[in-house]
């Protein structure tokens, strides 16, 4: 890549990547907790995929029983600190708060959850749960992201011997390396890994199933297998110039920015991000905060079709990210490195089967934008090659098919959850799946269904 933005100093990095939502003080947390009505059968609890008993944990904050509050939270959600910081709360719990119906601002559930979890972490994460005596059965969990952590923790509590196989050197999955640092820190996710590990879960890192260990070996060692492998294959643009130096994958970029080696990440002065999902916004915002002079998001449909949440869109705009809607990349230009991107103007046609209007190119409307770096954020796909090694595994729309009640796959010994079954949703969905799968596995290994 040529034409690099100057590197940030450590102080500049701290400032640019400071938390967007600072923690609540004790007084403000108690005041906010007291505002909660303590609804019964509350809509916030139902709106949370993991069904955290929100009003109960909030009332415990109000009474000063923060440890009990953390226990209420963790008993439903093993990655509750990540969720507190990264969940789209206005779409979930806070969006369901009854105060919305009264024309008042909803209770700040996410920040209160974070308050309780921060308190618990700051006090060294003392034990809150007693795992059942070992039942002699063993489960292998492939993938140490939120789905795998939740599944393994829940199994350990029930007395199972749970082993997580994580391909990377640090567990936590996207929670550790895929969330923008101004939303949460890597250490938050690693603390959740510690909480799960202390329940007696064995966590093996740097183990790539299908590489240094085979699926057959896992089947020999375990009574059941949970697949929490997420999505591994970045989707391709399939346009000329995609292989040029200076073209990067968004998640790879975010991972490096999130890591300790943020200072080694090169950012061009002019950056084009392709796609308009939440990952695209993260990549664009991070590029801008790392010092890029111009950052643009190129999206082939309009604002109404983009999958990024409103608050993400607002964040990007306030960071000075420019949006090119109804523009599709056609070629990436450059002799030895990225120099420009050629796009074609689009128009919207009839809706497709998902209800999204199909974008069609307008003939002879091509235009070029000079850029130094292209970040691809057009989604990811499941690793079809990996799944082909599991007999009788049924796939559906490119994802692993599971029974929605139990998370059991078509192969009775395999269960799955998280992004590999839903194509990429929130952390909280993965946490809910992992837990559900653990109970599915328990049912399978005890009742035999």
């Amino acid at each position, binding site marked *: 890549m040529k034409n690099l933005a100057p590197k940030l100093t450590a102080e500049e990095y701290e400032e640019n990547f400071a938390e967007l939502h600072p923690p609540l003080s004790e007084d403000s947390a108690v005041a906010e907790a007291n505002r909660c009505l303590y609804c019964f059968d*509350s809509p916030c609890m139902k709106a949370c995929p993991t069904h955290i008993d929100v009003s109960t944990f909030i009332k415990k904050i109000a009474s000063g029983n923060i440890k009990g509050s953390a226990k209420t939270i963790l008993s439903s959600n093993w990655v509750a600190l990540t969720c507190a910081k990264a969940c789209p709360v206005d779409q979930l719990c806070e969006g369901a708060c009854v105060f919305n*119906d009264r024309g008042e601002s909803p209770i700040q559930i996410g920040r209160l959850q974070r308050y309780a979890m921060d308190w618990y972490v700051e006090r060294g994460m003392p034990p809150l749960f007693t795992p059942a005596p070992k039942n002699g059965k063993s489960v292998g969990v492939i993938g140490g992201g939120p789905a795998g952590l939740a599944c393994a923790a829940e199994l350990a509590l029930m007395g199972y011997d749970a082993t997580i196989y994580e391909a990377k050197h640090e567990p936590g999955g996207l929670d550790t390396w895929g969330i923008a640092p101004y939303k949460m820190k890597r250490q938050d996710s690693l603390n959740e890994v510690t909480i799960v590990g202390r329940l007696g879960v064995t966590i093996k890192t740097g183990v790539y199933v299908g590489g240094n260990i085979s699926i057959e070996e896992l089947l020999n060692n375990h009574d059941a297998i949970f697949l929490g492998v997420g999505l591994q294959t970045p989707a391709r643009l399939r346009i000329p110039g995609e292989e040029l130096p200076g073209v990067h994958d968004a998640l790879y970029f975010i991972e490096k920015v999130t890591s300790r080696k943020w200072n080694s990440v090169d950012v061009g002065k002019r950056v084009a991000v392709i796609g308009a999902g939440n990952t695209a916004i993260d990549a664009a915002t991070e590029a801008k905060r790392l010092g890029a002079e111009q950052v643009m998001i190129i999206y082939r449909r309009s604002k109404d079709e983009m999958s990024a949440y409103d608050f993400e869109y607002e964040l990007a705009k306030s960071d000075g990210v420019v949006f090119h809607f109804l523009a599709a990349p056609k070629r990436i230009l450059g002799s030895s490195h990225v120099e420009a991107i050629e796009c074609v103007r689009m128009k919207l046609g009839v809706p497709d089967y998902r209800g999204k209007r199909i974008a069609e190119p307008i003939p002879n409307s091509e235009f070029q934008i000079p850029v130094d770096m292209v970040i691809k954020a057009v989604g990811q796909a499941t690793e079809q090659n990996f799944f082909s090694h599991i007999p009788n595994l049924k796939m559906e729309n490119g994802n692993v098919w599971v029974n929605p009640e139990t998370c059991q796959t078509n192969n009775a010994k395999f269960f799955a959850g998280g992004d590999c079954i839903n194509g990429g949703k929130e952390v909280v969905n993965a946490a809910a799946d992992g837990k559900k799968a653990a109970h599915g596995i328990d049912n399978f290994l005890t009742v035999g269904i």
Partner: protein
Amino acid sequence: MIDLSINCGGIKSPNPFWLASGPPTNSAYQVCKAFEAGWGGAVWKTIGEAVMNVVNRYGSMDYNGQKIIGLNNIELISDRPVEVNLREIAETKKLWPDRAVIASLMVESKRETWHEIVKRTIDTGCDGIELNYGCPHGMSERGMGSAVGQVPEYCTMITEWVTEVSTIPVLVKLTPNISDIRFPGRAARKGKANGISLINTINTIMGVDLDTFELNPSVDGKGGHGGYAGPAVKPIALNMVSQVAADTEINLPISAIGGISTWRDALEFILLGASSVQVCTAVMHYGFRIIEDMTEGLTHWMEEKNYRTLDEVRGKSLKCISEFGNLNLLYKAVARIDESKCIQCNLCYIACNDAAHQCIDLLPHGEKNQPTVRESDCVGCRLCFIVCPVEKCISMVRLDDASETITWNELMKQMPQPVTWEALRQFQHKHGIEIH
């Protein structure tokens, strides 16, 4: 033109709002500042015996993030010499001739001592005297304050010592730390008091520190009961004021005290028979400036209701006070939930199900559950109405046509005594009252 002026047992003021005897009336500086702000009168901080205060005098009851729902104190009567207080009272009265300046007194139980302090007080030119028979801490152990208020005979005796020499009106301030407030009230009447002030503070311990195990507030590790005031005591004060107001033997003007923070609170006391009202805790929380809203709010209410003077308003609620045996047993009302207002917090459901009569069902309603009253089983207890956080969402709807009334006392005259369950059941059955 609205006239807010009052006459309480011969003490006149341009509005009914007096500062109660306490920290806000400790000095001429404060009382003059309060009059400047618009207060109608002030009962000076009690003067009398030599005292010495301790540090950490107040404790607050905070609730759900709201500060000072209640305030307790272990502060004593004025710790400034009698002559300083009397001089400042005289100066203040001279500056503010139209306001009520009342001296609060507490001295040892000796006739001559009382005669002397009363005479010196009258010499200041003040409008009246209030006898502090209420303080529950510090002074009572020395045979003063509530030690007097709790013994009707002492109450009469000391009041007589005062009234036999006083040429100005005398109010007796009662302690609520007693089983029946009417007895000291009648004793004050017997001692020829011109009016009754109530209530003084209630005995309380505010709290215990869970780390140090000391009381709140703590004076170098030790503490004890203090006197409780503020918004939380208002219902207790309303009851006691109404008891004194309705008592035909007492029949004296009342200066009401107890948790009055706004004009609305004040009006409730006036409707129950009070002539003037006294405020302390609200001023300790927010300062003298609250008087603006108090006089303005009261004036606007009177304009809206078409009253010109407080005499037209005073005691209007006394006729609504009744003993239980005279309440209508056939008045029937049930709870109704306005589903268009309901936010499905389901607090009514859980309260009814766990703590009342299990007559609210949660019925599926889209993605939420809608609480719905089974009216045939509703006993009309009103708990759901109280817990509902949405204005006018749950209402108590009258079902009987008011054509028939019967009270317990009337019913007992009709029924053979002692009344049996069987006889009551027959009566209930006849009137369609089902007890589950």
